[in-house]
């Protein structure tokens, strides 16, 4: 059973078709990087996988469960197994960075307060923000917010991590650290990763498989090596660009 599967998903916003009969499968414990030019539906694809966007047609499966029209309470149960890193981190700006990371744990577990704080502190440490527990999100740089967002996404030890441009806005050293963390996560916890990125070096490091989206469809699918030798000039050019976020 694959970790996630999109079957013939089509999605339009107004007259604009963003996803067009998209089919995608990610086996458990594997990592998939979604590549493509801006506006080709990468983030929308990711949001389908957690039920934040509903397809106009087609089905979405997460660990075998069809979440396409799932009632909100059942969907919440599925979401507990998914971590989501937003493109702009989307930290809750009325609470501190540490409380952001502790938030999902406080909401969904009965752990003691000290344990929750220690867990959040440990996650912040892991993303290089060990000193920032009590700072407010607005006081952090964009890159630091991104890392805090990643810590929050990992708070419930998800079986599936969806990350929207995890290394965008980060310096190359930090970006490489985040990549290493994601790879670690996959190897140590068998976490399935679906990562949207413009960063080709990151995609090479993280992705077992890469898909290249173009006009809402999969234009190429395979390993980095295979994409470099794609029939499509657009894919070959993209892979050569070594573009960073």
């Amino acid at each position, binding site marked *: 059973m694959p970790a996630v599967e999109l079957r013939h998903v089509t999605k339009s916003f107004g007259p604009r078709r963003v996803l067009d009969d998209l089919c995608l499968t990610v086996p458990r414990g594997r990592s998939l990087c979604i590549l493509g030019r801006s506006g080709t539906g990468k983030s929308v694809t990711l949001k389908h996988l957690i039920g*934040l966007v509903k397809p106009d047609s087609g089905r979405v499966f997460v660990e075998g469960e069809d979440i396409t029209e799932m009632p909100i309470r059942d969907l*919440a149960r599925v*979401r507990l197994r998914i971590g*989501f890193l937003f*493109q702009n981190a989307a930290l*809750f700006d009325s609470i501190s960075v540490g409380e952001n990371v502790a938030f999902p744990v406080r*909401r969904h577990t009965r752990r003691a307060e000290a344990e929750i704080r220690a867990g959040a502190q440990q996650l912040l440490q892991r993303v290089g923000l060990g000193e920032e527990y009590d700072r407010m999100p607005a006081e952090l740089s964009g890159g630091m917010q991104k890392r805090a967002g990643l810590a*929050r996404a990992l*708070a419930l030890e998800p079986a599936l991590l969806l990350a929207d441009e995890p290394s965008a806005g980060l310096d190359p050293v930090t970006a490489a650290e985040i990549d290493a963390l994601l790879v670690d996560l996959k190897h140590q916890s068998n976490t399935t990763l679906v990562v949207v990125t413009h960063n080709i070096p990151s995609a090479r490091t993280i992705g077992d498989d890469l898909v290249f989206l173009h006009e809402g469809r999969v234009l190429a699918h395979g390993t980095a090596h295979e994409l470099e030798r794609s029939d499509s000039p657009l894919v070959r050019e993209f892979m050569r660009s070594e573009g960073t976020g």
Partner: protein
Amino acid sequence: MARTLEFLDTIGRGSRFAFRASHEMFRPPYEARETVRQLFELGCRSVPLIAASGLAVGVVLSMHTRASLARFGAESLIPAGLAIALVRETGPLTAGLLLSGRIGAGIGAELGAMKVTEQIDALEAVAVDPFKYLVVTRVIACVIAVPLLTTVMNFTGMLGGFAAETAVTGMPLGTYFRQAFGAIQFSDLIPATLKTTVFGFIIATVSSYLGMHTTRGTEGVGQASTRSVVLSSIFLIAANVLLVRIIFFFYPA
């Protein structure tokens, strides 16, 4: 035609939103911690505005009442007249309109900003129902806070009235309040104060709806905030007419 349909569509969605809010208020899970936080943010933090406004309204109302009653030589009725005017209408309506400004703008802007920065999506992503967590908590907080703040307005209004009165006649505090409270009946106070729970519901649901449906970035946030104030004030005034009619039906003057 298209605009009319769009308007009717918005009314329909807004009504469903309000119905859902009134329904979800009584369904678990109850977000007690967040509701208390909202009570503090929306309620306690509004006390200075309401108290200061109440004092000013009381002073002005007392001056007008004196000017009117002096013509008939009925100055002794000033405390009673002012108390009845405040408790029955001036206090609830003024508090409601002030709070639709302060609370309505705040909720519209806060939820609007959360919407455009994907914080509402982030709540969903961590398996929290944004409607229960953001909307229902604010509705409950407003339904509780607005009547309490109206009471603060009534009381500070009477204090303002006393200040104006004692400045002119030297009337002692005890005498003033005895005359003022002596004139008020439960049928003046209770229905008029309880109707402000509806004001609280209107302010919270209208501004939450507009905040949760914000689009177009920061410009949209500004619009959500402004519309929250304008629309909640209009709905509040309209509801007041209906509620006063109902109150008069049950408690004829």
